């Protein structure tokens, strides 16, 4: 599909009743928000990322998707940062529910990267894969479309190759786009589901030439060149052996216990469940809000917190992500998107801390 026909995708999605959400420029970053046409996309922009560092830069080529991942992740649409679960009133021998359970939205997620699909699939296992199903999550997820985009460049903070989640989109998508700039600016599009195929039939596409397919491959290959990596072989066990390593204390001298990494992480799923009542005491509400293992009271039980120190909280975060997640959900909890590295206000780098933990003497493998 020629790049200048991108709006046809939006039109087709809107015609099918989807609410389009995708990348757009705001507050000096590329964030995910409601968008309605290609004009809302950050065309011609890219991001420069490093530990604790993010800047927008203009690019010369007018690429639509020429950047990587920003501060937001898709989880905010499926596992909302703040959500009222219910409102109740006491009435005789029963509870009267005074709110309507929220109607799930039909989102079209536009511009989803391979690592983000991996993250979505991880959260699927958390919220809908076990014995209990989070109804809100499951219904919205079910109804939403994933319009994926293959990365054609990596940020300095990306390590999806090491985590085996990208850069190429391989599964879990409805449509997957690869943006090609040369010789002519166009998208190579593949459908990954029935809904995707139907949608694709509504787009002004031409059959893809072998040459274009090759160009797409080359483009994605570019994103495979990543400077950051993480040695995952044996990591799960290694961390378990190091639960009492002095290294945790070292990290704690730098870590702020501010919870930014967990909030930015596309797979972190912790929440608080908070009960309130109105002044009369007759109406009560329950709210669910993003919480984090870095927050005070997270591990509180009568008498005190289990994890009182930053060292123990960081250990929970890292060992959960990279080790105990396997026991719980059969995969790593990390998809290599690099958000926790970029959005840490003091640039703590997960990959670097893993390296120090596994090779305390220093030196890269």
């Amino acid at each position, binding site marked *: 599909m020629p790049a200048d026909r991108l709006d046809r995708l939006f039109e087709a999605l809107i015609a099918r009743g989807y609410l389009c959400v995708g990348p757009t420029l705001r507050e000096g970053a590329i964030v995910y928000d409601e968008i309605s046409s290609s004009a809302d996309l950050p065309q011609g922009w890219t991001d420069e990322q490093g530990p604790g560092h993010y800047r927008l830069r203009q690019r010369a080529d007018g690429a639509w998707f020429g950047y990587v991942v920003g501060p937001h992740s898709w989880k905010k649409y499926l596992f909302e940062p703040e959500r009222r679960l219910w409102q109740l009133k006491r009435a005789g021998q029963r509870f009267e529910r005074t709110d309507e359970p929220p109607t799930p939205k039909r989102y079209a997620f536009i511009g989803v990267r391979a690592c983000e699909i991996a993250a979505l699939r991880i959260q699927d296992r958390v919220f809908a894969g076990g014995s209990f199903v989070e109804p809100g999550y499951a219904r919205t997820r079910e109804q939403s479309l994933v319009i994926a985009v293959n990365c054609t460049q990596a940020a300095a903070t990306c390590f999806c190759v090491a985590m085996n989640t990208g850069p190429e989109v391989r599964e879990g998508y409805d449509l997957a786009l690869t943006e090609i700039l040369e010789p002519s600016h166009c998208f190579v599009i593949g459908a990954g589901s029935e809904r995707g195929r139907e949608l694709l039939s509504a787009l002004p596409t031409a059959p893809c030439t072998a040459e274009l397919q090759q160009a797409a491959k080359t483009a994605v290959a570019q994103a495979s060149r990543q400077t950051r990596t993480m040695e995952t072989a044996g990591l799960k066990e290694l961390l378990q052996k190091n639960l009492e390593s002095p290294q945790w204390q070292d990290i704690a001298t730098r870590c702020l216990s501010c919870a*930014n990494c967990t909030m930015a992480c596309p797979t972190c799923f912790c929440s608080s469940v908070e009960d309130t009542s109105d*002044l009369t005491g007759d109406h009560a509400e329950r709210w669910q809000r993003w919480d984090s293992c870095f927050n*005070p009271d997270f591990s509180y039980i009568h008498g005190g917190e289990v994890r009182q120190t930053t060292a123990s909280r960081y250990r929970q975060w890292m060992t959960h992500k990279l080790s105990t997640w396997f026991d719980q959900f059969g995969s790593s909890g990390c998809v290599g998107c690099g958000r926790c590295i970029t959005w840490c206000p003091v640039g703590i780098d997960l990959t670097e801390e893993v390296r120090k933990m596994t090779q305390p003497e220093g030196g890269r493998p």
Partner: protein
Amino acid sequence: MAKPRLAVWKFASCDGCQLSLLDCEDELLAVAGAVDLAYFPEASSDMRPGPYDLSLVEGSITTTHDAERILEVRRQSRVVITIGACATAGGIQALRNFADVEEFTRAVYATPAYIKTLKTSTPIADHIHVDFELRGCPINKYQLLEVINAFLHGRKPLVRAHSVCVECKRKGTVCVTVARGEPCLGPVTHGGCGALCPSYHRGCFGCYGPKELPNTSSLAHWARTELGASEADIARLYHNFNAWSEPFRQEGQSHG
């Protein structure tokens, strides 16, 4: 059942925190319906004697007279809740604690002899047992309502002690430090304001005081080495409305 008796006390302060109650335009009459405003001079000239079920205390202790008055407040009150940075940390006026008060008096008043004040501005909890401290300069009026509400129904106020960052991230605000290079106290500051400043594109300057486990030195180090803040900038950032709170006091002092 008799309505619980509420008292509102003022010590050295700007009135902003107790004004927060009058600023609850939508809820004020409901609150007045639920509690008996037995002593609230800013709002009522009907000032009735104690004892009180709940006392809200605004302001810091800066005079010997106030140091005695607060003891009486404690004796008269079943529950004491302090509201605002003045009452919980000494307030902006605690900047005197780092200086020579006599010189301050000479600088401001023509006849220093008329002025009687203590050398320090100290939080209420330095003088009496406080049952709950609500932070902020000023406090968040919804948190104040929550505290009153929780008190009325015997539950724990939903006032979480996490960082401002948590509120930023929940709102989807883009981090001003990472994306703009602005020094920001958010990571070491107690939440409650709803991460206001970052959503207005400026760094947090710590109205709500230190959060639990504030790693002030790591944040200061980053501001110094990566964001180009000067020692004086850092010292001033920590020495604001919560300058006298232990972690901010020490961090500020270690930068000059």
